[in-house]
């Protein structure tokens, strides 16, 4: 077992208080960082090979280096805590149990990019998390880790918790910025990228909770320690959130690149019910195309999954046994996407509900011959033509199911009933 970094305090009583956090060596990294040059911190993060844990897997250090160096310019850091992808619950673990790790990571990151203000955009439903974060921020102010002239370094920083407005799209980084500014959460056109014109038109870095929580450890233990963990191209610890038909679902912090087999059969204790073997698993939240048992040896990291035509996404692994109806599952996932489509662009707004209506018919035994071709056709018209990746995600999930379980869909249409149950 590796030494836990991100979830080390999970389940420890009082782990969210600043006293316990400091007792465990907390805020040391920040104090160290404040004595460093911001550029050196960015270089360290670059050297560590840390890639964004929100889904896209973009190099964090590189993202930071796009921020203009002009010290007179207002800059912002936004933490994306709008954890809304079905199956994903990893950030919540950090927010609820180790809020100071996030705050420390954000403070270091803000110092590195020169941001005097940062926002935590937390999913509206996470009332407990928002309260806990606010409490933690208040403690950090009281201890002088936030506010004016932090630790005598001359660095000023203010941090705000901003509760989200209840839409999945709020987690899209530019929609998140719109939402903080008080507008309707709809994605902005890129370019300009947020690094140049983000929140209120100012240079902005947007990072995921897990990404930012890695920062204190990188400062403390050095980039080599981080980059040696897991595969060379995507190193570091990773939280896998496993749900579905396994014996022990939950959060697992493992080195990046742990195989699905290891995760499901070793860490999670195997499939839930005997006689119901693995049918498929989604490796990274519902927008990631599903994989089948033949891909069980795939390493769960950015590049290995991309090679299999899927993606790591948020690292939310959903495991399904042989009792699962793929039509029903596709319908439910698609219903989610069409419900959450923001309405901005045509293909996603009008395409995803159409998919849902067709899937619903098939699921309820009202499928028509030609429906599968229709689904393929609609998918083709959505994919790659939407404004943001939401529509693409919906299509990828469905395409994955259609590719691997087409005969099951056909059975539904032909026999008006389910093959699996």
């Amino acid at each position, binding site marked *: 077992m590796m030494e836990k970094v991100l979830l080390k305090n999970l389940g420890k009583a009082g782990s969210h208080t600043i006293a316990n956090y400091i007792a465990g060596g907390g805020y040391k990294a920040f104090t160290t960082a404040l004595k460093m040059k911001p550029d050196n911190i960015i270089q360290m993060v670059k050297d560590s090979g840390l890639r964004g844990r929100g889904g896209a897997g973009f190099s964090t250090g590189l993202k930071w280096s796009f921020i203009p160096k002009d010290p007179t310019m207002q800059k912002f850091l936004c933490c994306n805590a709008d954890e809304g992808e079905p199956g994903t619950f990893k950030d919540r673990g950090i927010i609820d149990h180790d809020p100071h790790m996030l705050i420390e990571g954000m403070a270091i990151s803000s110092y590195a990019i020169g941001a005097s203000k940062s926002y935590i955009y937390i999913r509206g439903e996470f009332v407990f998390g928002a309260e806990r974060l606010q409490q933690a921020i208040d403690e950090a102010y009281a201890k002088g880790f936030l506010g004016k002239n932090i630790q005598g370094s001359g660095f000023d920083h203010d941090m705000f918790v901003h509760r989200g407005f209840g839409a999945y799209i709020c987690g899209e980084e530019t929609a998140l910025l719109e939402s903080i500014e008080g507008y309707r959460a709809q994605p902005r*056109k890129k370019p300009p990228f947020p690094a140049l014109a983000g929140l209120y038109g100012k240079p902005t870095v947007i990072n995921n909770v897990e990404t930012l929580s890695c920062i204190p450890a990188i400062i403390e233990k050095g980039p080599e320690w981080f980059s040696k963990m897991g595969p060379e191209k995507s190193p570091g610890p990773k939280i896998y959130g496993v749900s579905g038909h396994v014996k022990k679902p939950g959060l697992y912090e493992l080195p990046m690149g742990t195989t699905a087999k290891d995760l499901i059969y070793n860490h999670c204790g195997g499939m839930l019910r005997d006689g119901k073997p693995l049918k498929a698993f989604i490796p990274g939240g519902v927008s990631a195309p599903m994989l089948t048992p033949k891909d069980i040896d795939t390493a769960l990291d950015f590049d290995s999954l991309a090679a299999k035509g899927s993606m790591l996404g948020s690292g939310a692994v959903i495991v399904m046994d042989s009792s699962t109806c793929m039509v029903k599952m596709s319908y439910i996932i698609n219903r989610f996407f069409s419900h959450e489509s923001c309405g901005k*662009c*045509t293909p996603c*707004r009008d395409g995803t509900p159409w998919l849902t209506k067709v899937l619903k018919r098939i699921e309820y035994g009202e499928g028509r011959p030609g429906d599968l071709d229709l689904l393929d056709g609609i998918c083709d*018209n959505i994919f790659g033509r939407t404004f943001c990746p939401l529509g693409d995600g919906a299509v990828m999930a469905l395409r994955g199911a259609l590719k691997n379980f087409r005969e099951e869909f056909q059975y539904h249409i032909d026999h008006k009933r389910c093959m699996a149950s």
Partner: protein
Amino acid sequence: MRGTGYAEMVTVKINGKEITVEDNTLILDAARGAGYEIPTFCYQADLMGIGSCRMCLVEIEGQKKLQPSCVTPVLHGMSINTDSSTVQTARAGVLEFLLANHAMDCPVCDKGGECELQDMVHKHGPHKGRHAEPKFKFHEKDYTLSPVIIKNSNRCVQCMKCVRVCREVVGQNVLGALGRGDHQEPTSFFKHFMNCEMDGNCIEVCPVGCFMRLPYRYKSRPWDLKGSDTICPFCATGCRMVIEERDGALLRAKAQLGVGLNSETLCARGRFGQDFVNNPERITQPLIKRYGKLEPVTWEEAISHINVNLSGLSGEQIGGIASPRLTNEELYLFQKLMRGVLDSPNIDSSVRFSPEAVEGFVAATGMAEGGVSVYDCMDADTVFIIGTHLSDENPVIDYIVRRISAARRMNVIIASPRAMKLDSSANTVLRHNLASENAVLTTIIIGLNEGKLGEALKGMHDAQLDANLKASGLSADSVKDAVKRIAASESVAIFAGTDFLRYPEGITGLGILKDLLKSRGKKVKVMPVLDRANQRGAWEMGVHPGFGPGYTQVRKGLGTEGMLEAAMKGELEALYIAGSDVASMYPDEDFAKSALSKVKFLIVQDMFMSECARQANVVLPGASHAEKDGTFTNQEGRAQIIKKLLTAPGKAKQDINIIRAIGESFDRSFGPKHFALVLDEIRKEVPMYSEVSLAFNNKRNTENKLDNRTALIKAAEAPSISSGQFAAARAEESGARFVLATGNHLFHSGRSSRKSETLLGLLKGAVVEISDTDASELGLKNGDKVRVKGTNFEAQMTLITKKGTMRGVAFLAENFDEAPVNRYFRRGKGIPRVDIIKTI
């Protein structure tokens, strides 16, 4: 997009053709410029791009995904395909999606036949639909948003142009989107609809039958309409519009994208007020007063009656007042008749403003120096708006300032006693006392004269400054800010409004400021902001007692006021009023009426039975702008054409023919016979107009390369305009709390718009506007019924409170029949004071 002329050029390949365009040009603009059509829904050149409809996707070599051409700028060396099979499939796909939930009720849709969705599906669409699921419906029945707007969301394509035009151009923020995904609907909450300005720009930009005009509902199919390209006859902005008729009734007016300075926008009165021409109260035959009663006669009788009664009178005994809503050709002939045939120097086009004020204003704004384009003004570093409530008086200029000031870095300074919508786009608002324009300008002049700015303004505490600050009611800080912005600007555009004509003292300051800025090496443009469609044309055609056509020297005569005074003394035997309503516009109705009653022979030519017409000896039925050909000169100095669409009702005639008939009765060679020949004569006689062309329609495209400078009139050769000194305007001496400000209401222009049934439906009854501070001190609130009590008149009306308006100013529009504002005025007593009392 307008080029700046300084951008770097890049070369790109579109469909294999190499073209060179300015760097940062959008792919869409580049392709359209090169002659390739790209379909769009959500793109509109004047709105910020959102790239949401996905109709404009194009293929860029080396990029995996199709890119939206409406938000993607070209890069050097880019190779773009706008019509590949992938692109075509994508377009068909988008259209299939748009039709999925579309209502498909084309047979009963007002938009049918001119619907962009129909056209696009016809051209690019899948000709077979695959959507066989139940459609999502927002509602069963269309719903009425306002007296002029009705909506069917089931037809919406979610381009959000309505929302964007409301926010970015109109600035009213009424519309927004509710709901998410396919439930997203551009609409608003009820209380926001109360703020709607009813301009209907949402209707104009809507590509489908979602937002529709209520007055036009089910009246016609678009292909049954006959249209003509014309100019709005209300304020002097000079918006181009198409008016359309069916079976002799004017049914709608619409603006066209890319045509005229207004492009696709119009204001409420422009879009919905044109139906005044259909009003059944139009006068349809000539009338002569016999035994105190007006009786119908033939045109021959009427003209010979006029001839007989005018013959034998000397020029000094005759006067002529023509409306600034007549065409240039009519006004030119009118002054030719007065000066040339009847030998009378007494001629005027302004009932409300004194001839001296007009001369001063013309000189200070430099109208004789030729036309100034509003878009050139918007290139300035600072735009300074003073003397007008721009948002109500010239709404389309308000739109232009809002849109351009949001898109580029510039200063907007607004000086006005009343709060206005455009204040939100201003960097500095100078809220000053009524009629204190001169004091405002003087404080700025003093500020600018304080030498280098940085150390600056410390000398600003001298007595003169204090006196002017006190007179204007401004704070030193706001003046400092304005001065700082003006001083730091290389170019300044001043928009000077009609308050300078009402309270001419400010003209002095305006002239000084203009000269001062010029002497500092700044580029200065002055734009007169006027409220009558052809006011500038009227002056330039010489319908003024002080100057002839092209501001030339003439024998000085009497202006409106002088004529009325002469009439009072019995010195004016005959008065010919063409289109003006002197009795209801002259600021002292009793005086005007009794003066008119003393005129022995009063000729009134009008569309409606006005107060004047009732007193007339001869009434001649004239025509509206929709019933004649001619040109209008807008406030910029741009001569634009109006085209005949309808025939005047009954025996009514085009004004130009009436004027000519009167002229011919004295001199058979009076003419020319046709408006185009009159324009030819104007071109010869008035050098300012030598290049005005009837061919010009202000539509810029790749072929004609017209830009906004074309069609502006030239400078006059040797103008003879004197700028005198003007006394300060005084307020009436009474203890009343408010001074009375007047001007046009947003929904009206003068009195002609009062004949529009649609506009009357927008606002029932007169309103008076005061600041919310005054209101709360008086225990009044918005919407209260109040009595506005002046020294010699009082009327009932509804109270409107406005946040930010100067205290002690009550605004009463000059448009309301039931509260004629000119009855509050008394000649020589200054600006009226009124009290506002709640009626129980």
